[in-house]
């Protein structure tokens, strides 16, 4: 049987000052407090060295099984979770679900219960249906980590984006961050909006009016449809991928060409931006559509940094999902290992 959160959390005696996680699951950033987001990022910081090296490996998750169940195509997120799990010493298993569990006449819950019967500890799920990770938490005992659900949230992407900003800017509070593109269908946008607004950034969303519902103002963000006007004011610009596959019915903007003209980030446009602006993109890139190659590969781009930060962030998230208390200040992964050894396993 998978370990219950209570048992696992109890395995490490909590230091009196040690803050606790609110949950082992990570479903979205909307429900996390600013403090807990900071705590996960501090945890990621503790894993930074381990994340960037193949030489060392933690044994924190030795004997634990992390299953990645991706019911939607993904390259970097799946690889990143697998690598993060392995660097923490976990066993990993990739459950290759077809395009959808429905295609086989089995519900997602049935699929998950079947996998769980194999005694897994952490289930990392990507699914085209918004809310499916949350539904799973009601049915399975494993910790569930959302690796992107429909247009709802992509919490580890939101965390790694914030982590990248922190690494380059030293802070998030007070920064003016623009998120550009199809906000309506973007889980990356939602997770970024929750994390950034909680941490005190001034968040702007920019794109065609058909992809930016007015309700977004209630999320505490500002809306612009004029990229040329907005760009010079930004400290960070996060360019989203145009996801034509999520648009059903008539196209919501007239053409890719017109989109690129109005909202694409190219070299000429970037010249109007602040000299130290960060250019981010969650990938995969549509080069020449929302971002031109000279910008994507240029000096202001931190796109590959984002990928590297993703690894440390996902190690932190798996640490949390496994039920281990956060490292106290000054703790190192090595100390966590010894703490774990004392627990009932």
């Amino acid at each position, binding site marked *: 049987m998978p370990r219950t959160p209570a048992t696992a959390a109890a395995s490490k005696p909590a230091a009196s000052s040690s803050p606790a996680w609110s949950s082992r699951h990570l479903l979205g950033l909307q429900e996390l407090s600013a403090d807990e987001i900071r705590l996960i990022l501090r945890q990621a910081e503790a894993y930074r060295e381990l994340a960037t090296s193949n030489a060392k490996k933690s044994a924190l998750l030795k004997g634990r099984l992390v299953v990645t169940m991706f019911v939607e195509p993904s390259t970097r997120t799946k690889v990143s979770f697998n690598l993060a799990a392995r660097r923490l010493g976990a066993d990993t298993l990739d459950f290759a679900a077809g395009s959808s569990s429905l295609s086989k006449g089995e*519900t997602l819950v049935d699929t998950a219960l079947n996998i769980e019967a194999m005694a897994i500890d952490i289930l990392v799920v990507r*699914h085209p*249906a*918004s*809310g499916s990770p*949350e*539904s799973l938490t009601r049915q399975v005992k494993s910790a569930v980590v959302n690796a992107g659900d429909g*247009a709802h949230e992509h919490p580890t992407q939101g965390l790694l984006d914030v982590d990248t900003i922190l690494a380059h800017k030293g802070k998030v509070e007070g920064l003016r961050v623009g998120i550009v593109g199809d906000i309506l269908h973007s889980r990356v946008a939602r997770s970024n909006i929750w994390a950034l607004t909680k941490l005190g950034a001034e968040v702007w969303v920019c794109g065609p009016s058909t992809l930016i519902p007015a309700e977004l103002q209630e999320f505490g963000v500002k809306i612009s449809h004029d990229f040329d006007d907005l760009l010079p004011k930004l400290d960070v610009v996060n360019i989203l991928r145009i996801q034509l596959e999520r648009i059903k*019915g008539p196209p919501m903007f007239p053409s890719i060409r017109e989109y690129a003209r109005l909202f694409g980030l190219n070299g000429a446009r970037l010249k109007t931006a602040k000299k130290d602006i960060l250019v981010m993109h969650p990938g995969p890139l549509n080069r020449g559509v929302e971002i031109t190659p000279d910008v994507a590969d240029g000096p202001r781009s931190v796109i590959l940094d984002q990928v590297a930060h993703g690894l440390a962030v996902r190690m932190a998230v798996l640490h949390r999902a496994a039920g281990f208390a956060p490292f106290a200040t000054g703790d190192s992964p090595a100390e966590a290992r010894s703490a774990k050894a004392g627990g009932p396993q």
Partner: protein
Amino acid sequence: MTTLLIKGGHVIDPANNIDAVANVFISDGKIVSVGDKAPKATETIEAKGLVVCPGLIDMHVHLREPGKEEEETIASGSAAAIAGGFTSVAAMPNTEPACDSEAQVEFTILQGRRAALANVFPIGAVSKGRKGEELAEIGQMVRGGAVAFSDDGAPVHNAALMRLALQYAAMFDRCVIQHSEDPNLFGCGCMHEGRVSMELGLEGIPAAAEESMIARDVILAKSTGGHLHAAHISTRGSAAQVRAGKASGVRVTAEVTPHHFTLTDDRVRSYDPVYKMNPPLREGPDVQAMIEALRDGTIDVIASDHAPHATEEKELEFGEAPFGVIGLETMIGLVITFLVEPGHITLARAIETMTINPAKILRLAKGTLSPGADADVTLFDPKKTWTVTAANFKSRSRNCPFEGWKLKGRPETVVVGGRVLSCR
């Protein structure tokens, strides 16, 4: 000769403006008198402390037979009706195959008689096969016993067909019940479009999908003189369209479901498909608008839109699960708890929306305790508190969004054509 005396109950018969303690005397399946007299009867029901009203009519239910008998049958749906205090139901034609012919209409009536519980009245399809292309044989279906026409589950999208339907059905003095929804605006939506859908990343259904269709149909009803009944309206804008239509003399009536005056789209935050219905749960101000429209007479009828679905279908992802909730067995409790108890409407007004009003819309000689009327009577305890437990329902399905709710007002006994049936 069988006679029945319902003694000492609080008789509320809005059609006759009766709201007093009285006895109801029934003979040979017909109402004989309502008053102080207590004639000797072969059977007597002590109704002290109970409300005695004309048999309740739910003019919008889905009984799934033929086609999806695992979800509901005409017999199980009739049993659910009796358990909920309803003596009559009108069955929507979105069965498989669709109820679009005289034979199908007669089959529904026959199955209702075999079940011998509630009266089951068929609503015929507007279009052949409910495809929205050409009129079904409305005249034949009227002869077979159809009480109204609708493609419910889907709208009559084609404006020319809707115009023809209103004109043609009027020839037989029947109304057209529209499932008001513009399919293009509806798109692939699965919940109300608004702040919550934006947070959840679920495809939204704009209020305009419903409102624009009602606006169009009110215009068509006006120009044809036909009777438009707008099923399950759910938004502020829809109420405004119906109100304006009535004010300008259009023959338009409207209904609301209990879930649209009790629940909002906030419920969908759980991603639980038990909160997925069409029209979707709307926002707080829409719920307020439904209550206001019930109070001012804009909305004529409360109907359940009882829509049974198999549990395994409702366990799919929110976007994939079918629309609909069951409602027959919770309706009285919800109406009393959320409309009458807080003082939004009187008990008499509530009863009116489930008796004489639907009877008029469906052209039924029911919904009243007038001497000579069919002896359909509902007895319920307006003070009794109970807890909703779907596992105990007579319906074959369990997709009830009110599980565990404490409700006030419970049906006790019904009389159908003079025959006494217990609600438990």
